[in-house]
């Protein structure tokens, strides 16, 4: 009894410790860059960071859901790109109504997630492998449609509504959208049967099966969520930049995984904190922005984001041992 209550105290502090660690890393990053560049903490730059955090933030939600159930989704970057390309192409080539095209592009994301979900839940394919294959397929489709060139959409004002509408002087619609979605997802994770089921499947899939949970549909909808979030992220990005960029998704999958892991989501499943995932996203985007601010060449950003992921994973596994 005494022994077990001692154990609990240690466990509790390790959860708190993790949050402290993440927030500390975030604070240090802010400190370092604000010393390195006087513009880093300017209001305009903070808004810039928030805006560029939107696509990654949305994609990270889906990735977080996947990681909670114990699988990786490697496809969201290309799903995001292709969603943007589909949206733009349907408008420019087929003269389709902007919002109908938007709905079709979003549906594509859900469809892609459904393929990943079926392959994982029913065909028992390793998720990181099937989604990696899916990513390559979408990459090919993007290149066939665009020929590798961005589709300029600046002539279509309706296209820009989603990404460029201003709520206040500085806050734009995407930022508001991101915050609302994070609040909803926080609620879904904590208070709904689906949210809890994700954690149970990731916590112990055999126990979940024996407990009568519909494990396969949970895995399926988890990927559908991821596909949908990825598409939405890509659409917001396309609208904001008024172009459908074929290569913007190259890094999103890795960055989303990084942000999620940096945010303390347990690899192997069962544990996550969606608020910390948001901090993880801000760390990834802030790092990129800060390195630009202190005028380090873009190539260093690869090294930085690689190092962050490496250290985050190392901290997590060393804590488990």
């Amino acid at each position, binding site marked *: 009894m005494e022994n*077990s209550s001692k154990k609990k105290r240690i*466990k509790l502090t390790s959860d708190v410790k993790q949050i402290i660690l993440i927030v500390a890393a975030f604070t240090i990053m802010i400190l370092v860059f604000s010393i390195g560049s006087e513009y880093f903490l300017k209001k305009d730059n903070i808004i810039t960071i928030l805006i560029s955090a939107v696509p990654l933030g949305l994609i990270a939600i889906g990735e977080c859901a996947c990681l909670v159930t114990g699988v990786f989704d490697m496809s969201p970057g290309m799903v995001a790109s292709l969603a943007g390309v589909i949206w733009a192409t349907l408008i420019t080539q087929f003269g389709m109504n902007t919002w109908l095209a938007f709905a079709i592009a979003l549906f594509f994301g859900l469809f892609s997630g459904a393929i990943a979900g079926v392959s994982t839940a029913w065909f028992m394919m390793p998720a990181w492998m099937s989604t990696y294959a899916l990513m390559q397929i979408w990459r090919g489709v993007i290149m066939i449609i665009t020929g590798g060139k961005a589709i300029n959409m600046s002539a279509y004002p309706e296209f820009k509504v989603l990404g460029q509408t201003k709520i206040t002087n500085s806050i734009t619609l995407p930022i508001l959208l991101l915050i609302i979605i994070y609040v909803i997802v926080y609620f879904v994770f904590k*208070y709904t049967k689906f949210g809890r089921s994700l954690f149970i499947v990731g916590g112990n899939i055999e126990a979940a099966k024996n407990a009568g949970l519909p494990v396969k549909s949970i895995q399926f909808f988890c990927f559908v969520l991821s596909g949908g979030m990825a598409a939405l992220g890509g659409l917001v990005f396309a609208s904001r930049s008024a172009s459908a960029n074929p290569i913007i998704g190259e890094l999103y999958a890795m960055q989303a995984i990084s942000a999620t892991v940096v945010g303390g989501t347990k690899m192997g499943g069962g544990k996550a904190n969606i608020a910390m995932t948001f901090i993880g996203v801000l760390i990834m985007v802030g790092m990129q922005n800060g390195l630009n601010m202190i005028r380090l060449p873009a190539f260093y950003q690869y090294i930085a984001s690689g190092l962050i992921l490496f250290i985050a994973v190392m901290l997590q596994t060393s804590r488990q041992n």
Partner: protein
Amino acid sequence: MDSQIILEMKHIDKAFPGVQALNDVSLSIKKGEVHGLCGENGAGKSTLLKIATGLYSKDSGNIFIDGEEADIRSVESARKYGIHVVPQEIQILRDLTVAENIFLGSQPTTKLGLIDWEKMFSLANNVKQGLGRHAQSLNVKSKAGDLSMGSWQLIEIMRALIDENIKVLAFDEPTSSLSDDEAESLFELINDLRSQGVAIIYVSHRLKEIFSICDVVTVLKDGEYVDTKKISETTSDELVSMMIGRGINFFGEPKDRSYIKDEIMLKAENFSCGHHYQDVSLELRKGEIVGLYGLVGAGRTEFVRGLFAADKKDSGTLYLKNQKVNIRDPREANKLGMGFVTENRREEGLMLNASLTWNLSMPNLAEVLNKFDILMLNKEKAYADQGISLFDVKTSGREMLAVGLSGGNQQKVVLSKWVMANCDILIVDEPTRGIDVGAKVEVYDALKKLAKEGKSILMVSSELPEILGVSDRIIVMCEGRVTGNLENIDLTEEDVIKYAFDTHFDTLEESGYGE
């Protein structure tokens, strides 16, 4: 035959968490002798074998080989002393040839360090020629995956025989997955090896085999040495009576049979699945605890997993409360009021890194949802507290992680989880495995309490005293079939265990071994 002692184990102790697996066990094996090791489930025969062959390390005691003390720390070091084992679970790389499988990790090489295929095949053929006629049809260049189980076992044996200094070859339940013909040729092979002076340790609970090939037999019981007998001077009845009478008695209050109602809650008819179990039928009444006993490999766990639809079955009809039902997966079983406490509670029953609250509400989230399908966290907390108090789980609170609980308390959480989910029929598989002696009593009391409240319990157990101490009725399985269905009134261990050996007894009597 030379009667020189090759392997001598003296005063071996070995403990696992919560159980003393071996207590001061000694054993001597002579050259050219086939030495049988017998005992009930958990008697320690496999543990002793694993210590001799380096798979486990002993806590204390000494091992002597040819009169000199040996320091066996690993399978490799045991092999250096000439001690080899043919494990129960045969390990074969299916995509490699027979010869490669034999020389796994010790392939002969050329001067350049490349594998010398010619030499490997010819060495493998040499080993094969030393084996009996049954081995001669084996082509050392065939792919192992295409061959039969008997051939795989032959590969395991040849792996041992490439050691020219082989002294001891141990077999752990070698016939459990062999056909009768294959078993027959194995016995011929063992006879050949015996005449070549190899000492054989033969672990089996098939008494017929012990009598047909062993020279000497040692019986273990509860991790302790009972006796060693010459096979010509003993009978199967004597061996069985040496195996039973295990000295544990801590079953708390005796089970009150008056709670048993006539209503049949579960009726299984003719459940079959491949070679795992055939034509298994049983009934479970309201308020009844039925113990399902059998030796390891009798197909009990496979059957109950088929019952709960956790694994597929070939055929069989299930009636719940006299309604025919067709259950396709655990989810449907669960909806019909069946709960399954698996034998691996850590792997299949609990989320170790989640709170007790989450673990308890897992199969019954519907209970803590409001009408908008939102989880009521306060209600869930109350639900968890109720589950914890149901069996008096010793914990610092519902937020404690399951990993921090003792084995007994973990098991109580799993039981509680199902009871809270309103299951009327509980299937519990080895409910006290790996649990401290003291905590076992609490699990037994929990089971009895549930039966008293009108639940029906089907308990699989390998522990005979446990089966006798808790069950109202005992069903015995042997080699995939039900061989006994006994009301537990004044039953002794002997009454039950003879059904677990049942088929062998018949043949023993026919062949005259029984007397």
